[in-house]
């Protein structure tokens, strides 16, 4: 047996890689995780880039992380604590604001200030979206069946999949009308969907935000309604659609996962970038790293996105040509940027009354869907949005561990920002220009904001690509459209975490159920590996 041999090698210590690794280590396997950066966590990190301030400098909020994973891996033991949001708000140029709260009735009262009809429509809207969430929830922990296969597993899997759409126990059975609604929901644009409920522009603009975050779709693009669902299907303790902060930043999630992994005897090696998968006789037998090491294992599990997994670290001749073509066509377009800001104090946002919990979570300033679509138009031309949609929050308002008392960390997610910037692409100067532009946009709503800035970090899709390893900076590791979801993710025929190369698996967000700090792809992939290794398991993913 060659040196450096393990049962499993996981490539990439992001949250899905660590989830998969922890489940497999818990099952008794010897697991090694290789990470290219000197820190672990992938896009779920807390980094002190300015002394005294912790930045969740990629992903910044938590809702999708499956509670059953937190339970199976006992992440609380390793310090994970989710802090629910208090509310959210959209600021308006006329000095008014629109707010959502943790409390449903308070939200209804707040919407009513803008439209009495919308306040009541919101009840109907919540019900309909919640119904879709309930349909999709059990699918998250299933391996999508291959609809073209006649294997019993796939036939039963397809039935199981279908069953959830008509499950009597959960939803009392869906009638024809609701099944039509589901199909429409998955294919509609968010604008068309919201128009069926609401009249006021501000209500629609506030709600539509969830449908564009992270995607290269506009609010008028078909398929954007699903993206909203993707952001809603998470929960904080049964409160479906709620979002929260991970105490200590998003890095606390991956740190807790690593704690679990190590307790089960697994290991993470930082500074170990995998250059290629070692293939012998048509099987993956190990990996080589850029620093010249080789590691061997019975199974290789890649937590890189589909493009990096199959086009970068796997040699093309080890894969079928048609498969490679499909991977090349996999849509993974970067559309977002970020600012991480160290603030000397709490900025005033005069639109939001002091002490209003609406300012406790995500804040925005896009007032109409038209504005949002305009922001998207800039992106299509290869420019950052002149009037961007931002999702900004100040985690340190709720979390005492991000900065010293009285100091604040602000996360600003920006939509839209192109990967390929027109007229010569990204360079340091244009990156800083983009950063200044965003600071100016926020300053319009906060007179003292600029004065409070100690430091900020600008993140473009280029940085997400080169540093984090998200191809083109797409935060979901692949667009969330029907052609790339469920049994189509990443490509039809290979949606079951196995790859055309024997002993090689993929557990990243490029697989079902997709992006967000969810962990479900990792847990599902671990299950498939354990099934292939004939290691029976108990837990929420079996």
């Amino acid at each position, binding site marked *: 047996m060659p040196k450096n041999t393990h049962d499993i090698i996981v490539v990439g210590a992001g949250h899905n890689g660590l989830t998969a690794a922890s489940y497999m280590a818990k099952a008794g396997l010897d697991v090694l995780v290789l990470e290219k950066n000197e820190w672990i966590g992938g896009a779920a990190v807390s980094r002190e880039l300015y002394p005294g301030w912790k930045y969740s400098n990629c992903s910044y909020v938590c809702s999708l992380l499956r*509670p*059953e994973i*937190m*339970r199976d891996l*006992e*992440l*609380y033991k390793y310090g994970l*604590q*989710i*802090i*629910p949001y*208090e509310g959210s708000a959209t600021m308006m140029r006329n000095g008014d604001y629109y707010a959502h709260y*943790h*409390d449903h009735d*308070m939200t209804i009262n707040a919407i009513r200030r803008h439209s009495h009809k919308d306040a009541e429509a919101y009840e109907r809207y919540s019900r309909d979206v919640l119904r879709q969430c309930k349909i999709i929830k059990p699918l998250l922990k299933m391996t999508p069946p291959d609809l073209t296969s006649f294997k019993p597993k796939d036939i039963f899997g397809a039935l199981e999949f279908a069953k959830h759409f008509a499950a009597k*126990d959960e939803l009392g059975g869906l009638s024809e009308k609701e099944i039509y609604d589901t199909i429409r929901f998955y294919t509609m644009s968010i604008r068309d969907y919201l128009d069926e409920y609401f009249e006021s522009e501000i209500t629609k603009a506030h709600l539509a935000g969830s449908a564009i975050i992270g995607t290269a779709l506009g609010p008028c693009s078909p398929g954007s309604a699903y993206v909203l669902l993707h952001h809603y299907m998470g929960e*904080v*303790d*049964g*409160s479906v659609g709620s979002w929260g902060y991970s*105490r200590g930043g998003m890095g606390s999630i991956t740190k807790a996962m690593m704690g679990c992994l190590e307790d089960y005897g697994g290991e993470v090696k930082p500074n170990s970038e995998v250059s290629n998968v070692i293939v012998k006789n048509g099987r993956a037998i190990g990996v080589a790293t850029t620093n010249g090491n080789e590691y061997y294992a019975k199974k290789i599990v890649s937590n890189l996105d589909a493009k990096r997994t199959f086009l970068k670290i796997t040699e093309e001749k080890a894969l079928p040509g048609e498969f490679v073509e499909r991977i090349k066509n996999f849509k993974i377009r970067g559309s977002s940027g970020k600012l991480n800001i160290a603030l000397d104090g709490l900025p005033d946002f005069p639109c939001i009354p002091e002490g209003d*919990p609406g300012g406790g979570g995500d804040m925005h300033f896009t007032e109409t869907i038209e504005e949002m679509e305009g922001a998207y138009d800039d992106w299509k031309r290869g420019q950052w949005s002149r009037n961007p949609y931002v999702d900004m929050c100040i985690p340190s308002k*709720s*979390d*005492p*561990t991000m900065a*010293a*008392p*009285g100091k604040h960390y602000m996360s600003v997610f920006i939509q839209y920002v192109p990967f390929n910037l027109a007229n010569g692409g990204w360079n340091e100067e244009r990156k800083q220009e983009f950063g200044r532009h965003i600071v100016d946009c926020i300053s319009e709503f906060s007179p003292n904001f600029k004065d409070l800035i100690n430091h900020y970090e600008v993140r473009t899709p280029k940085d997400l690509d080169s540093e984090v390893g998200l191809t083109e900076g797409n935060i979901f590791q692949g667009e969330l459209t029907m052609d790339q979801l469920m049994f189509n993710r990443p490509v039809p025929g290979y949606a079951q975490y196995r790859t055309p190369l024997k002993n090689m698996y993929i557990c990243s967000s490029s697989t079902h159920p997709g992006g967000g700090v969810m962990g479900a792809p990792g847990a599902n992939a671990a299950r498939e590996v354990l099934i292939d290794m004939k290691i029976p398991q108990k837990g929420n993913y079996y």
Partner: protein
Amino acid sequence: MAIDLRYSALKKTPFHSRTSLASRTNHWYTWNGFTVPTEYSTVELEYTAARNGTSVMDLTPMGKYEITGEEAHAFSDYLVTRDLSEMKDNTVAYIIWCNEDGKVIDDGTIFKYSSNKFMLCCAVKIYNWLNDSAEGFNVKIEDVTDTIAALSLQGPTSCSTLKNYGAIGLESLAPFEMKEFNIDGNNVLISRTGFTGDLGYELWIDPKNAEATWDAIFDAGKHLKIRPFGMNALEMTRIEAGFIQTNTDFMAAEDALRPVRMRSPYEIGMGWLVHFKKKNYFIGKKALKKEKEMGSTERCLVGLDIDGDKPAHGSVIYNSKKEDIGIVTAAMWSPTMKRNVALASLRRPYGIKIKDNIFAEIYHPEEIEYRKIWAKCKVVKRQFYSPERRNKVPADLYE
């Protein structure tokens, strides 16, 4: 401010002007003749304050009794099952006390100022019981419930909040120790105690300083995620900590209408507080000794880790033959652990010798109908959650 009993059927605590101002929901709970907020905003956010920042609860309604006199120490030791003979000044002990039949009347905490001054805190009213039991002891019993205002500050930043407020050196106070501080010219007694299983403190002050203290504390905690905390959130934290609640997890012997509902310490997981070896007799000793010798304990109180995410409120517990073996007394979905946990009173040997194949029948309400869930349970330690920071000395500071 003295409490005026003439006009209101239920008493307002000395913090009422502040708690009512902080309440966004106007939900009030009746506790020991007082009204206190059930919740202020939403239970999830309040619960989170105790696990993330500082939660502040008005603890005034807690029954408080001063035991003074030459034999205060001897009487306290006689009253409770725990051996208090070695108890040091300025410490607090968790205690239970029983009637002569060895059935538990209540649990609580006892504070020792000196050998001739103690304070007992508990949920039920026991002024009468204390006086009757004190016959023959040279002690004076005084109900100080209305004359001592109390606040509970719990959570990881609670030490920092109190330090900002003026409790210099508080971080060196160990769990179950207490210390008097002079803050803004007033005496404030602070004990490192609480009902959340987390880092936390309780403040015992003169009611006339209540409002000013509340304001000063909220000011001290303004950057430390401070939040008022109601009774619903308390119920969540105490279940996670595995603490028992009188008349919820067991019936107080003095309150139980049906004698069969009375419980011995062994039946509610409190056997560790019964010290037969202590020098002097204590109330209930004879009966408890007999129970222990005969092995006649009928029930036990255990922690359950239950499959799925639907809380098992009031569930009947079954063995694999579908025979009824007990009942859930308190249940919750734990937001911190992401576990579905419960406290359950089981018929022995279930929960002690037989820990497998135990099931809860959960009736989960779903829009006017119930879904019946048959969920597998694991018997686990009742103390579900106990973070490291809880017992750390010096306590964590956020600066």
